[in-house]
């Protein structure tokens, strides 16, 4: 197998090249060397494999920029029994993710520059997928006092958030948006009005039947409306994460139409599942915000499709059995998502809702641009972060085969199509599915 860890050129030929920036899906090739993309395009090597260069024959499978995942919870530090940088990195590579942004709600939280440096150091040690860290927006994630946004930015934080804890105080959010402007820092918020979002699942008929406290969908709309007013007032950069409702999509759509610096993301469970997945108190389908009604799911699909929703994130949140095998209201929220992100996102393609380049824009180019990351695009000089995948291969999701340390997926046993065959990071192969992609020719 060609492996350019020594920096020698490698030609990926005979590929179905997915270029999200150019919005193209055509036969082509990529040439890498020194960990970067040296050349790429439809006409490259159209006359055949170059002589004397290591060659990977992609056999017509899709070759695209590696996924840039903006939302990954690692157990490390503090809850290494749930996930470590090493296992999260393995899971990411297996899922075609070459860059991931780690949320700050660890133990201790990343509310200090030294913890951002810790992430960078650990990422270098494990040598897997590129790992970036968010800074905590407030000290101790308490929502009371701003953290050292300037110093933490200098240390390498890619954005600021309190993770799944929304900022309740309008005054604090106003100050955060104002203050962060100095450093051009992006504020990321899961918009959920806290006093309306205490319930365990989506408010509605099913919650009433199950006797579970409801989280009303207006919790998202109210918090979003408030935050967007503050963005308008301050001119700050704001990114809403995990949009789950039709109202939320509509509010962001209107804010964008008004020219505000507002972007957002969603996760596959919000466009591939609805609240029915909670079923008979299925704690693996407990997420924050909760899975919503079918009409909301359809609106999220539309939002992703028309670009109102800028990015698709995995919202990878590993939980051990002890955190999930409890009564629903007591169960910790979250699903593992690194290894299901690609196939579930591809459902939008198989359902005829989006083209592959458009899906890849949400998975790579746009997140990379918003967070100012180097990967996520086909461009001469860009990092050679690539994923080779077969969009059509059928398989059934089996958490027992995950690289992630836990198997708390809401997609257990879901028949799906599409899988990463090989993942390349800085020109180096970090994952190869040997059952699907046997050793190939290296010249």
């Amino acid at each position, binding site marked *: 197998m060609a492996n350019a860890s020594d920096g020698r050129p490698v030609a990926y030929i005979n590929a179905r090249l997915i270029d999200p920036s150019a919005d193209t899906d055509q036969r082509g090739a990529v040439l890498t060397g020194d960990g970067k993309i040296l050349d790429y395009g439809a006409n490259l090597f159209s006359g055949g494999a170059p002589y004397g260069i290591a060659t990977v024959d992609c056999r017509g499978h899709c070759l695209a920029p590696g996924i840039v995942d903006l939302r990954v919870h690692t157990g490390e530090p503090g809850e290494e029994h749930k996930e470590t940088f090493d296992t999260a990195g393995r899971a990411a590579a297996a899922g075609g993710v070459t860059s991931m942004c780690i949320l700050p709600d660890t133990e201790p939280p990343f509310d200090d520059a030294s913890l951002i440096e810790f992430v960078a150091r650990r990422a270098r040690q494990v040598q897997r997928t590129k790992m970036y860290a968010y800074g905590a927006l407030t000290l101790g994630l308490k929502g009371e006092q701003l953290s050292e946004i300037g110093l933490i930015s200098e240390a390498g934080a890619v954005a600021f958030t309190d993770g799944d804890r929304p900022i309740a105080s309008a005054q604090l959010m106003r100050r955060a948006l104002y203050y962060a402007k100095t450093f051009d820092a992006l504020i990321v918020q899961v918009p959920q009005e806290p006093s309306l979002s205490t319930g365990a699942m989506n408010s*509605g*008929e099913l*919650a*009433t039947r199950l*006797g*579970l406290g409801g989280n009303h969908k207006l919790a998202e709309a109210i918090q979003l409306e408030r935050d967007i007013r503050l963005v308008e007032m301050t001119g700050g950069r704001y990114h809403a994460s995990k949009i789950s409702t039709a109202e939320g999509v509509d509010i962001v759509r209107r804010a964008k139409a008004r020219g505000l610096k507002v972007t957002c993301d969603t996760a596959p469970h919000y466009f591939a599942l609805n609240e029915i997945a909670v079923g008979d108190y299925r704690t693996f389908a407990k997420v924050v915000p909760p899975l919503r009604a079918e009409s909301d799911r359809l609106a999220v699909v539309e939002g992703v499709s028309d670009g109102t929703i800028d990015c698709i994130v995995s919202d990878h949140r590993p939980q051990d059995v002890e955190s999930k095998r*409890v009564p*629903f209201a007591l169960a910790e929220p979250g699903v593992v998502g690194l290894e299901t992100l690609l196939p579930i996102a591809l459902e939008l393609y198989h359902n005829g809702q989006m083209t592959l380049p458009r899906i890849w824009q949400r998975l790579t180019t746009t997140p990379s641009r918003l967070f100012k990351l180097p990967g996520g695009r086909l461009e001469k000089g860009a990092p050679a972060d690539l994923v080779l995948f077969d969009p059509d291969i059928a398989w059934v999701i089996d958490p027992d085969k995950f690289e992630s340390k836990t198997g708390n997926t809401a997609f257990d046993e879901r028949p799906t199509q599409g899988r990463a065959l090989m993942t390349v990071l800085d020109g180096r192969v970090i994952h190869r599915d040997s059952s699907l992609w046997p050793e190939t020719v290296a010249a």
Partner: protein
Amino acid sequence: MTMRSLSVSMPRDLLGIEGLSAASISALLDLSETYIDTNRSLVKRRDTLSGRTVINLFFEASTRTRTSFEVAAKRLGADVINMEVAASSVKKGETLLDTAMTLNAMLPDALVVRHQDSGAVNLLAQKVNCSVINGGDGSHEHPTQALLDALTIRRRKGKLEGLLVAICGDILHSRVARSNIHLLKIMGAQVRVVGPATLMPTDIDRMGVEVHYSMRTGLKDVDIVMMLRLQTERMSGSFVPSVSEYFRFFGLDEEKMKVTRPGALIMHPGPMNRGVEIDSAVADDLQRSVIHEQVEMGVAVRMACLDALIGGRRNALPGAA
């Protein structure tokens, strides 16, 4: 009557009313009828469950329900163990499963479980080998309460089908309301829920009930008035402003009963907050109030449930008499 008298098959567990068929409910009520006679006779004990072990596992305090199950099991000849696990010691959910697995290893025939969290009994039922009866879980279901209410109504009114029933008060937090809505709808009754909007669950109308925020319209022409207990800790602040205001608008008294159909019955799962959700004059009205009868029916219904779930299987064993 034994399990062999039931004309329908019962599931292993009784976790809720939702999903039961009208035939299963009728069969359980019929079986319960036979135990009313047993309970009213001088010698109340039967050997239907002789040699069987029933564990009452209560994570939430409830003297009434626990005692009712205990009396029911003992009258059928079962060995009964009561376990009350203080809620404060069950901070972590895994304790629930640890306790269940430990008890399971002692090979009981039935676990009667009450828990403060919705779905906890369903979770536990997945982990044990014996029958599980839901003795009330969170705001989800309390199936034996609904069955005993149905038995009481059926004996007084001769039917369930076609009756107009109002369930009044704190619907939001009530497992009794949910089980009763399911049962009454399955059996062909019409159901109204009545209470302040703050105590009404979202989309409750989609369960096939009429929603009323006024007792005057909610009780109009009803055959049955089911009052629910309002927990006094919910009386202040966010749900309702005060006890006196709640009683004025949603407490049941003679005046509000005037719009009901003649002969309307008054029910309450107990324990009652007199002067909060119900006035003593109507609670103690022997003509209309069937509150004590509900308690009596509770024992018969629980005997029938235990018999149907674990007595029947015993009888079905090869070589059983």
